[in-house]
């Protein structure tokens, strides 16, 4: 039993750190605040190019697809360092969609899509949610019909982040209307420049943009339907599973907290050094303690993946823990900063770079997005603790006649 990284892992961490020292520029960090983790501004484009040059773009991909075949622990270390540096995360196209294509695509599909993704020529927006199918993904009503060797796609997707910057949507649509709702969906790729695709912006509280995407008789080649028909719901779950490694990361909040700690060390309000205020002192200690706990929880996911497991309950725990903790951290830290805590990061006079105010507005999304925390708690109960499901076949009370 031990918690230390191996010498190789430490060397790898240091290599990533050295890279970030050169490439995580102040300009990049500010841009990330403005357009979000998944945004694609000039600085992040430059940064992604540097990652690509390093080969780290396809860090976890198998060698056969030109990847470095790094294991989950190395990937965890990589993601952790990126987040702590405040730079954009790797695009989901690379970390979630590509691995899914590698598993479900035909040889032709793999040969067609993977190299383009590797080069950065293709960037997917994820089209899972709809207005009436958020947490309940399987209720999607967007549909596609196969006509004359082409899919005709109709419907609407919501919260399609990146759709205004990407090249394609990776989306689930109903293709088998007569099957039960979970079994009637298929995974289809829709080019964003196809006639009939409309992308309209949805601005959310933190000032970030996401989109609604409308499909109006959009024609898509038959070969753009990936894997088996009717399996779309399960493929989406598979793609989401590939995101587990970065689910529940506390690194961004940790980074912001460290900036606040620096402020607390220096600042004086009303003639009292912040660091002498007992209310502030207790909160600083408690936040650090909680961050120490949260950080360890994500490690287990990586370790379990390393061993070939699928740590579903574990990553749900991380997700709940980190999302609720982030909200607390931003709340407390915004207060610690006093009147300055209200200031936007674009305001030059803000303390702690204004990250906390931005995170304050972003944090609620961590709890309801990516599978609401209620669903995550259900998952822990069902998958982690083996609790009975309401839907399971009629339960019989022990000791009574059935």
């Amino acid at each position, binding site marked *: 039993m031990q918690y230390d990284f191996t010498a190789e892992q430490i060397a790898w961490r240091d290599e990533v750190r050295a890279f970030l020292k050169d490439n995580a520029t102040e300009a990049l960090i500010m841009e990330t605040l403005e357009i979000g983790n998944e945004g694609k501004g000039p600085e992040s484009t430059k940064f992604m190019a540097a990652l690509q040059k390093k080969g780290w773009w396809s860090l976890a991909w198998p060698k056969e697809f030109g990847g470095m075949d790094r294991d989950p622990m190395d990937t965890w270390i990589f993601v952790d360092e990126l987040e702590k540096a405040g730079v954009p995360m790797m695009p989901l196209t690379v970390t979630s969609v590509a691995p899914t294509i590698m598993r479900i695509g035909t040889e032709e599909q793999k040969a067609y899509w993977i190299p383009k993704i590797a080069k950065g020529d293709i960037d997917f927006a994820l089209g899972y949610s709809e207005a009436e199918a958020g947490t*309940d993904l399987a*209720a999607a009503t967007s549909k596609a019909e196969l006509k004359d060797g082409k899919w005709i796609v109709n419907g609407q997707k919501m919260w399609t982040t990146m759709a205004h910057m990407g090249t394609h949507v990776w989306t689930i649509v109903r293709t088998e209307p007569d099957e039960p709702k979970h079994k009637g969906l298929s995974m289809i790729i829709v080019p964003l420049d196809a006639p009939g695709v409309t992308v309209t912006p949805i601005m959310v*509280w933190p000032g970030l943009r996401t989109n609604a995407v409308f499909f109006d008789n959009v024609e898509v080649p038959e070969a753009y339907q990936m894997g088996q028909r009717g399996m779309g719901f399960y493929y989406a779950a598979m793609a989401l599973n590939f995101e587990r490694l970065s689910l529940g990361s506390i690194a961004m909040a940790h980074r912001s907290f460290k900036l606040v700690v620096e402020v607390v060390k220096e600042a004086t309000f009303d003639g009292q050094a912040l660091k002498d205020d007992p209310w502030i002192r207790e909160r600083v200690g408690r936040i650090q303690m909680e961050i120490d706990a949260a950080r360890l929880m994500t490690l287990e996911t990586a370790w379990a993946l390393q061993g070939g497991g699928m740590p579903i309950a574990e990553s749900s725990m991380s997700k709940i823990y980190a999302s609720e903790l982030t909200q607390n951290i931003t709340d407390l830290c915004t207060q610690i900063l006093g*009147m300055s*805590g209200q*200031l936007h990061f674009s*305001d030059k006079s803000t303390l702690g770079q204004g990250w906390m105010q931005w995170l304050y*507005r972003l944090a609620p999304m961590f709890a*309801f997005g990516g599978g609401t925390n*209620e669903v995550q708690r259900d998952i822990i109960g069902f998958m982690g603790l083996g609790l009975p499901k309401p839907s399971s076949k009629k339960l019989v009370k022990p000791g009574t006649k059935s």
Partner: protein
Amino acid sequence: MHPVPTDDQEAILHEIRKFLTKSVDADKCMAWEKEPGSAVSALKSSVAELGWFGYSAPEDVGGSEAGFVDLSLLYEELGRGLLPLQVINYMRGVQAVVDLDPKCSLLNNLTTAEKTICLSFDEEFNRLPENYDVKIEGDAVYGRKCYVLNAESADYHLVAAKEKGGLSLVVVENKDLKFQPLKTMADDSQAHVDYSGAKVIARLGDAGNGKEAFDKMWLNQRLLALSEMLGSMFCVLDTTVDYIKERWQFGQPIALFQAVRHQTADMATTVTACRHLTRQAITRTVAGTVESTEVLSALAYVGQAYKKVCWAGHHLHGGTGFVVEHPMHWHSERAQSYCIRYTPEAPFLKAITAKLLD
């Protein structure tokens, strides 16, 4: 004990609510945020016609002489109805003048909103009046005030500053002042202001003798903040209850999920606690019957609770409540802004403890 508004009060509140429902909606809020000047100005005039600027001012300066309890109920409705902060803050400016000097001649124009006034108290690293750096010398104000709401648009600035070793409360005109506008969470038109010799045109109280009056006025501002927060919580709770009944997922309204129902129940419990703490603090302050820690507890409790209610509201609304067109975020912005400005938790907790232990 009668812990709810009387029938007469309810009738007035109903009218206020009707006006706000008609005058404020998400589209307008979006527009005002982009262009706070003109549109808000029109609303300000309607509000002035309703007499809200002079709600508690003496009749002879154009006021309605409402008592503080009635005033607080008005502020509950302002919070519930999301009256733009720019307008609320003009109203708060008038209220401060009424508290400090109800006979002040400026009130004649302030109660009609022909003129407006903003409150210029905080300094970059000083919030307590005893620490202020801004000074009055020979009837002119010198120094820098910070986080001043409506600083650029108000006609007058009510400035609290050092004078004769004490605190003075004076009014200067918004003329030749230097501003550093701020981008804030609640988009509430704040700025840092440099006064380099701005001339005092009116005094509220004697020179250097204003500390006690300031504290009383500022307590009232805080109590009104509790009322606003309470009204806002009513709105968030109602909106959330409506939403979870209407929003279907997995073939049923999400209100049928016990976890959703229980979170909403906890919101309601929190709002109930805030309702009592707020209204008790206000009615008993007015009646002069405050016992022990009860007002301090309200000040320490309500703001933090307000944020929790807003988070729960966000959470249960999911993406729907996260778009900028949905009112949820305005409530949440106010929650933290108000906590920071009016009811930070720490000093009141400390004051409660001191009362018990020291």
